[in-house]
């Protein structure tokens, strides 16, 4: 098993899928010669040429809309949104078109499109290069939203997304790109979309989260283990539609649940997790469900100390887990 970074997992998945299936192609702003502003598509232009690694005009609605058309024709486009924050001009194409084409055509047409988008804070990106956008889309039947936390999950789930016959939004945490490294098998593998994953087993408190916060939770859990607090960590991986069974099982196991998101709190995807627990686990709970999230303010400021205040960190998780354990 090789140890690679989160962004290398993205690049490898793209490369391998393009080698495997000539119908897969990549399009977006600066994905060509430049290899993407984060270098996620690095090397693809050289290997596959400008026909399959397409620099588009600066127009997100067209990137998604053209991707939809190409997907209806039978290809498997992977459209990059340069930053998740900038996918909003494409909202109509995503929600009205990509998500509804199969349904509205009574299964006649389908849209096997993958939309990749770097999201998340902690990179001095200011208000518009730091946001979590999943909640905007996590109420749209017909879409799948994948948000992996490790290189292993990135690679296996991006491949699954590309092979999926329905539109998938694949959010990549941009702070994790180079920060997070991990093992991936040498042989090819694909992971199932829609399945959460227990990243750590434990008996006292359950943390349910996704993305970079999974790593914060792992660090906090490690620390708390020394204090005798045993933490279970469920990584949602797919935030829409949610893996209800796994959520219910994880909540029931410890009876104390901390839900964590980097997004602002009200209306976030962990609200739905809380609702599922409230509907299904009332008599299994030993403490009220707790949510840890960003403040309900538009987005994190650019100035470093303000950004820091806005962001999650392992200490905030540690404290919240401890509080629950002591409840």
């Amino acid at each position, binding site marked *: 098993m090789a140890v690679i970074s989160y962004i290398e997992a993205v690049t490898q998945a793209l490369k391998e899928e393009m080698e495997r299936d000539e119908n897969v192609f990549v399009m977006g702003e600066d994905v060509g010669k430049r290899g993407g502003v984060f270098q996620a598509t690095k090397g693809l232009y050289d290997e596959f040429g400008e026909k399959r690694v397409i620099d588009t005009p600066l127009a997100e609605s067209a990137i998604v809309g*053209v991707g939809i058309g190409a997907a209806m024709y039978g290809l498997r486009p992977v459209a990059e949104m340069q930053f998740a924050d900038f996918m909003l001009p494409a909202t109509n194409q995503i929600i009205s078109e990509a998500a509804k084409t*199969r349904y509205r055509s009574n299964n006649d047409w389908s849209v096997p499109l993958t939309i990749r988008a770097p999201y998340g804070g902690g990179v001095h990106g200011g208000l518009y290069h730091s946001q979590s956008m999943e909640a905007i889309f996590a109420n749209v039947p017909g879409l799948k939203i994948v948000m992996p936390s490790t290189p292993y999950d990135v690679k296996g789930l991006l491949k699954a997304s590309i092979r999926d016959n329905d539109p998938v939004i694949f959010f990549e945490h941009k702070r994790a790109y180079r920060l997070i490294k991990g093992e991936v098998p040498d042989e090819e593998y694909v992971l199932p979309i829609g399945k959460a994953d227990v990243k750590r087993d434990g008996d006292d408190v359950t943390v349910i989260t996704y993305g970079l916060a999974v790593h914060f939770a792992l660090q906090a859990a490690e620390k708390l283990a020394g204090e005798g607090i045993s933490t279970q960590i469920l990584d949602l991986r797919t935030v829409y539609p949610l893996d209800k069974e796994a959520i219910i099982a994880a909540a029931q196991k410890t009876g104390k649940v901390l839900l964590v998101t980097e997004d602002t709190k009200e209306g976030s995807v962990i609200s739905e997790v809380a609702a599922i627990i409230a509907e299904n686990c009332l008599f299994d709970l030993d403490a009220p469900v707790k949510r840890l999230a960003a403040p309900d303010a538009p987005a994190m400021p650019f100035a470093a100390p303000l950004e820091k205040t806005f962001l999650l960190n392992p200490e905030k998780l540690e404290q919240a887990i401890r509080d629950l354990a002591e409840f």
Partner: protein
Amino acid sequence: MENRHHALGFSDQDVLKMYDIMLTARRVDERLWLLNRAGKIPFVVSCQGQEAAQVGAAFALNREKDYVAPYYRDYGFVLAWGMTVREMMLNNFARGEDPNSAGRQMPGHFGYKKLRMLSHSSPVTTQNPHAVGVALAAKLKGDDIVSFVTFGEGSANQGDFHEAANFAGVHKLPVIFMCENNHYAISVGLKHQLSCDYVSDRAKGYGMFGKTFDGNDPLAAYLAVKEAADRAHRGEGPSLLEANCYRLTPHTSDDNDMTYRTKAEVEEAKKHDGVLTFAAYLRELGVLTPEREKEMEERIRKEIDEATDYAEKAPFADPMTVLRYVYEEKD
């Protein structure tokens, strides 16, 4: 009168077929309004005034290979493209057998994979980038096809129009954008929609071929779309065409057009109605004889009667199917 269709390489048989389809579209449309007023179908959206442009366009394309993304007024176009009158009636009655959406969508929201007709939705102009995507994909695969898309002149002011046109221009894709300018976007007339003289004035900004033609004349439509298609096949990229039409009916059965335009204006426009003027042209040349006309009207009426009857009796989809096809269903 000059014989214009022979000059274009059309036989008399060809133009009679053209007229036949235009007339069928018109008669279907008229029937839909009757059915609506009789309370049998809840909603009608009309093609009246745009048939000539639609049918002429279809004749200029390869109906075995090309991909099309028609919009909700394109009854004439989809008929010429191979949808049957029965299928149209199933669509308007929203029955389970409707090939467009099994009654899930409103009438006129076409989509038929067998006919390489993309699935259309209600938010306007979203189909434009789709048509560009089809052309991009075909180019990538080395398939020599044309991708054809229509939309209204009001819709030409949506961002998606611009982004799609520019994308097609940059990649020199074989796309034909045909704007059916019927002078109104619901109640809003040209003056409050557009500040250019012609929608096709926008072609230059996308480095593409642009042309406005008489939307009441199917031969003008044919000529323009043929020129655009030839350019596309030669690798000369996309075209922006504009059919100058007029919407003869209210926007839909939910609209009252007398709140924003006058009867006199509509009456004046009716004088130029392509179905009438093309018939006059064919009569003048002796191509459309009284006998042929009678045969046509009777055959069409019979076809519409039967289709209506069939559709009215056809069942709705099972209500429990509302849960189906959200995602792919594996076996």
